[in-house]
Every structure is written in structure tokens, then in C-alpha cells.
């Protein structure tokens, strides 16, 4: 059984079709990259997997570990093990990172029928994961994402992912706006979490992230569909030649 199975997915926003019959299969232990030109539907796909109701699913299915993901509320998907690292992390004034993280952790545990985490164990994990993404411990006392630099926001997303240990992590352009050091740190966080039981869907615009997070499979998403699937080499080709050659090939 694959971890994520997307079949013939059609979705629109305000009546405008964005995804037009997308198919994707992701097995556990795998890292897939999705690349594609602007406006091809990459972020839409990420939002739909997480359950953002701004999009209307008009056709198709998404199965996660054999169960329909579309039947679950966003918080239930999180509890099932789906994580989205946001392209634009949201600020929540007055809510400290610690309080937010503790609430998230314990809400997920509650849905899984587990007791809240012991405060000592929680703190230990916070310190470990902060170190992993080289996140300043001081940020834990600040309001969620408020006053964080662009790089800190992205590292904070990876920190949350490390804390929650999801089965499936979708990284939505986590590399955008990062300098090379920040990129390395983010990748280091992701690589440390990779194992045979989880899977990653890395959405990116640039090949350079894939130098650090080496994907098993690379997909090209254009005009609402996966139009090409290949190995890491495909990403290099795209970097060198742009997307036009694929689009041309497809048309032909």
C-alpha cells in the first residue's frame, strides 16, 4: 500500500480550475520533488493535501494509508500524520511558540488517544529540535512567527515538523527566500528526519534545494497535471533548459 495515492484530482478556486487530473503515488521511505513553473498548481496541491477549504475538489480522490484524506478535517489530517510546511508561515500575535507547540502536540496526542506529553520530555524535545535547525531558543518565548526573519520563519516550520514527527511532510517552497546557509540548515533538518517510515513531498522552484535534499523521484507539474516524472537528473535538465522544452515536448 502506498502512503499517498492521488488519482485524477481536479480542483478549482472561485470556479477557476487549477488542478486538472493530477495523479501521484508516494511510498513510505521516499522523497519526491515537485517542480514546475509559476501558477502550475504546486501550492494548490499542497494546500489541498492539508485540507484548506478555499479550494473546491471537483473530481478525483486522495488516499492516505488507504483511507480517504478528503473525508478528514484539517486537524484530523494533522493527527493522521500529515504536515505542511507553509510557504508563508502565519503570525499569531500574543501566542507564544511554546504554548502553540505544546497545544499542537497535545491536541494531536489527544486525537491519537494518548495522554499529554510530560512537561520535562516536551522541553527536552524542544531543545533537541531547536538545535537541529539552529533556531535561537529565545524565539520560543516570542509570539508565533511574529518578528521572525524570513529565514527564521522557514526554520521554524522545519522545527515544528521535527517536533511533530509526521508520516508525510509537504514542504511548500520552503527554500524560497533563503540564503545558502539557511538552505543548508533547513535541508539538514529534513535529512535528519528522513527514515524508512516517513515520506516527503518537496515543492520547489529551484533545483538547488535538491542538491541538499536528494529526491528519489522528480515530477514536473504544469497546467494542473504532472506532465513528466523522472529521477534527480530531470531536475538538472530543468535547471539548465527551463520548463519550455518539456511543455513543447508535451504539446508535440
Amino acid at each position, binding site marked *: 500500500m502506498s502512503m499517498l495515492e492521488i488519482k485524477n484530482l481536479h480542483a478549482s478556486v472561485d470556479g477557476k480550475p487549477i488542478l486538472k487530473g493530477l495523479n501521484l503515488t508516494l511510498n513510505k521511505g521516499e522523497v519526491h520533488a515537485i517542480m514546475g513553473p509559476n501558477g502550475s498548481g504546486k501550492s494548490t496541491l499542497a494546500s489541498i493535501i*492539508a*485540507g*484548506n477549504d*478555499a479550494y473546491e475538489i471537483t473530481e478525483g480522490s486522495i488516499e492516505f494509508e488507504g483511507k480517504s484524506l478528503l473525508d478528514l*478535517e*484539517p*486537524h484530523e*489530517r*494533522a*493527527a493522521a500524520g500529515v*504536515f*505542511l510546511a*507553509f510557504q508563508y*508561515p*502565519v503570525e*499569531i*500575535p*500574543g*501566542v507564544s511558540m511554546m*504554548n*502553540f507547540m505544546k*497545544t*499542537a*502536540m497535545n*491536541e*494531536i496526542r489527544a*486525537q491519537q488517544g494518548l495522554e499529554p506529553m510530560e512537561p520535562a520530555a516536551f522541553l527536552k524535545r524542544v531543545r533537541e529540535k531547536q538545535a537541529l535547525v539552529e533556531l535561537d531558543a529565545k524565539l520560543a518565548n516570542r*509570539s508565533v512567527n511574529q518578528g521572525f526573519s524570513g529565514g527564521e520563519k522557514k526554520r521554524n516550520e522545519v522545527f*515544528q515538523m521535527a517536533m*511533530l514527527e509526521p508520516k508525510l511532510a509537504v514542504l511548500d517552497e520552503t527554500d524560497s527566500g533563503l540564503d545558502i546557509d539557511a538552505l543548508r540548515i533547513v535541508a539538514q533538518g529534513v535529512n535528519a528526519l528522513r527514515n524508512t517510515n516517513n515520506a516527503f513531498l518537496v515543492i520547489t522552484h529551484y533545483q538547488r534545494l535538491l542538491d541538499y535534499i536528494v529526491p528519489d523521484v522528480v515530477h514536473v507539474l504544469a497546467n494542473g497535471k504532472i506532465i513528466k516524472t523522472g529521477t534527480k537528473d530531470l531536475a538538472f535538465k530543468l535547471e539548465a533548459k527551463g520548463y519550455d522544452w518539456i511543455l513543447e515536448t508535451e504539446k508535440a
Partner: protein
Amino acid sequence: MAEEQDKLLHEITNREYEHGWSVDLEAETLEPGLTEDTVRFISAKKNEPSWLLEWRLKAFRHWQQMTEPHWGLMHYPPIDYQALSYYSAPKKKPELASLDEVDPELLKTFDRLGISLQEQKMLAGVAVDAVIDSVSVKTTFKEKLAEKGVIFCSLSEAVQEHPDLVKAYLGTVVPIKDNFFAALNSAVFSDGSFVYIPKGVRCPMELSTYFRINAMNTGQFERTLIVADDDSYVSYLEGCTAPMRDENQLHAAVVELVALNRAHIKYSTVQNWYPGDKNGKGGIYNFVTKRGNCLGENSLISWTQVETGSSITWKYPSVLLKGDGSKGEFFSVAVTANAQQADTGTKMVHLGRNTSSTIISKGISAGQSNNSYRGLVKIAPSATGARNFSQCDSLLLGSHCGAHTFPSIEVDNATGKVEHEATTSKIAEDQIFYLNQRGIPTEKAVALIVNGYCREVLDQLPMEFAVEARKLLEISLEGSVG
């Protein structure tokens, strides 16, 4: 000659009154209706000195000439003041043998608020066991306070035991003619608290735990007077996060604070009176006059309020900044859900030199409710170097509720500095989605966002109370989203 006759007539009629009311003195509950007899009856029941009776009567006579104010942004059916009963002897709640006999729904709420078992018993009227019984708790408090010379008792007791203090300050901050509801309260006030902190004394405890145990059931016309003498400090906490029901729909309380030189009074309120059903039916009407007088130089009066209850809230805790260098603060969270209506805010009246005030108001409206901030910042000609900072934020949940801001600023001294910031916002969908994606269900997400939004105010509350207040916000907004 005619004057003489009038006087005689007056005496005779008064004597008739005397006759009339003395007969009823045994009654525990007064028949509905409000006349001078009612006022005399209440005063006699409390064995009050004649000056206080006269004071009440003066208030009553003035009240009769006044009309109920309707400038608030609120709608409610007319109140028939003659249909209310103005006195009933403090009733003992029926005592239950154990918590098992208490309504399980109530216990659930207590648990969620994090109220200690011991306190749950007291609030629910369960007989308290001998280990920490309420009497010994009270005695310990009393001894501790007495050591420092702090007076903390019911206002009725203070009238008997400390008449000079009461006489010197009662009605000096909220005069009997101040407004319709204050006049009514002055005429018929039931009871309340009296606090006096002597010179140089820092009150050794929050007057909160004690209050919660001790001063329940003070009646619908509560009156509180707090006097902090030179260089003293007191933190007073009124109310309770536990849901409070009351058979009296109309509440008209008066609170007066007096801060002398360099004294600091911190007054915190958590108000959770019954808000009525979904349509607001049966909820409490809360018309309160609260005012502090920073009489002494460099004194400080700080109001913090978390208002979640009542179907109608009409309340403007204010500070008169008379002493040079004195400070006034107002931190407020007002939540309205369903059909609740709140018209609340503050008045900061700068009279002394170099006085300053801060206003932080957070209004949250949900359902079909209406939430208004109404405030006045006045800088008098005498208030050279006065400063004010006001921030009034409104948060809307859903699209059927209303938030309104009515700030007034009057500056009569060119050196005055007044800053006012106001925002109105809705909880952003992307904030909720972000929290959802981390496993937090929508209701909890809203509570988290609202708590964050109110943080500046909640941080002002005494620690253990802040925790309860956070949970209270969560419970108050349940079912208002989605």
C-alpha cells in the same frame, strides 16, 4: 407661619412613615416597591446611624427626579423599578453533603476552569470538611491582615465599626447624584466590601481568595469602598470565573477607590454573570459605576476587567487624576456572544500636573452580539504635562455581530499629549488554518488566537486568576465559530 406648618406637617408624615415601617421590621423579604419607607426599612434593618439614613434618603429623593439613561448602544425592555424587591435577608444556600449532589454540568465547568476542589465545594454550597474549613481559612486571613492594621470587612460592618472612615470617604468619588444607577444604589445599597490600608502598608495578600470565599451574596446593589492611605499597596480581586446565577435580574453596583499619596490600588474584575439564553432571555442587567480617585501625588489606580457575562453590561471604570504625577490604568477584555450587549470603557480625567493614563481595551464580539467601547480622556486646564495612551481593538467572530468605538478626547491644556490607536479585525482564516494544520481543532484554535489577542490585558491579572480567565474566554466563545 406657613413654614412652621410645613415643618409640623413634615414631622407628622415622617412619624407616620416610622410607624409604617417599624411594623415590617421582622420581615425577611420586602414586598416589591420603592418608596422612602423602603429606604428607611433597609437602613433600620442594618441598624445604621442617622447620617447614613439621611444620606440614603437624599440619594433616593434625587433619584426620583432622574431618568434612566439611554445613551448606551443597548436595547432592553423598560425596567419597572416598582416591581423589584429591595431587601431580602442574606439567605443561606442549602447545604449539600458532598460534591456528588451538585449538578454535574456545574462541576464540569468548575473543572475546566481549574477551580480547586475546596473552592468548588464552597461555590456549590457543599459543607466543607474539617481539614481546611472555611472558618479557619478566614481566621488565618483575618489574623494576618489585622497584624498589618488592614481593615477588610463588609461595608455594613464598617459602618458600625469604623464609622469615621466610612463617613469621610463614602460618596466622595461617586457622589449620590452622579448618575441614575449610582443614585439608586446609594439609596438602597445592600452590602459590599470595605477596605482600608494604613499608611506605608503593603497588603500581604491578594484580597481575592478571601473575597471569593467570604463575600458572596452581597446582593444586587453592591457597594464597595477601598481607601489606600499614603505609601500603601493593595490588590483587590472581585468576582469569579465560575458561572454566577442570580434571581435578581438588575444589578447596579458602585465601587469607589481612594488612593492617597503614593498609594497604589490594583482592582481586578472577572465578571461572569449569567448572560441569558441564546436570545439573551433571563440574563443579568449589569449597570455599574466604578471610579477611582487618585487624590494623592504620585498615586496609581489600575483597573483590569474581564467581562464575559451578563446580558447587558454598562460599565466605565474611571480614574480622576487629581494628585500631581498620579497614574490611571484601564485594561479591559469584554466578550459578547449570542445576544449579549456590552457598552463599556473608561474615563480618565486629568486634573493634576504630569498625570498620565493608559487605556488598553480589547473587545471581542461573536454571534448577534454588540460590543461598544466608550471612553473619555479629559485633560483639564490645570493638568500641565499630562499624557494619555489609548489602544482600542475590536475583534469580530462571524458576520452578524457588531463592534463600535466611541472615544472622546477633550484637551484643554496645550502641553497635553494624547495618543489613540484603534483597530477592528476579524480572525483571519489563514490563522485558523495554520493552527488546524498543526492538529488544533477550530474551536481551540479560536480560543488560542483570542487569548493571544487579549494577552496584554490577561497578563495584568494575578497569576492564578489569569489561568482561569483564559479558560473562561475559551468557554465563553464555545460554539460561536464554525
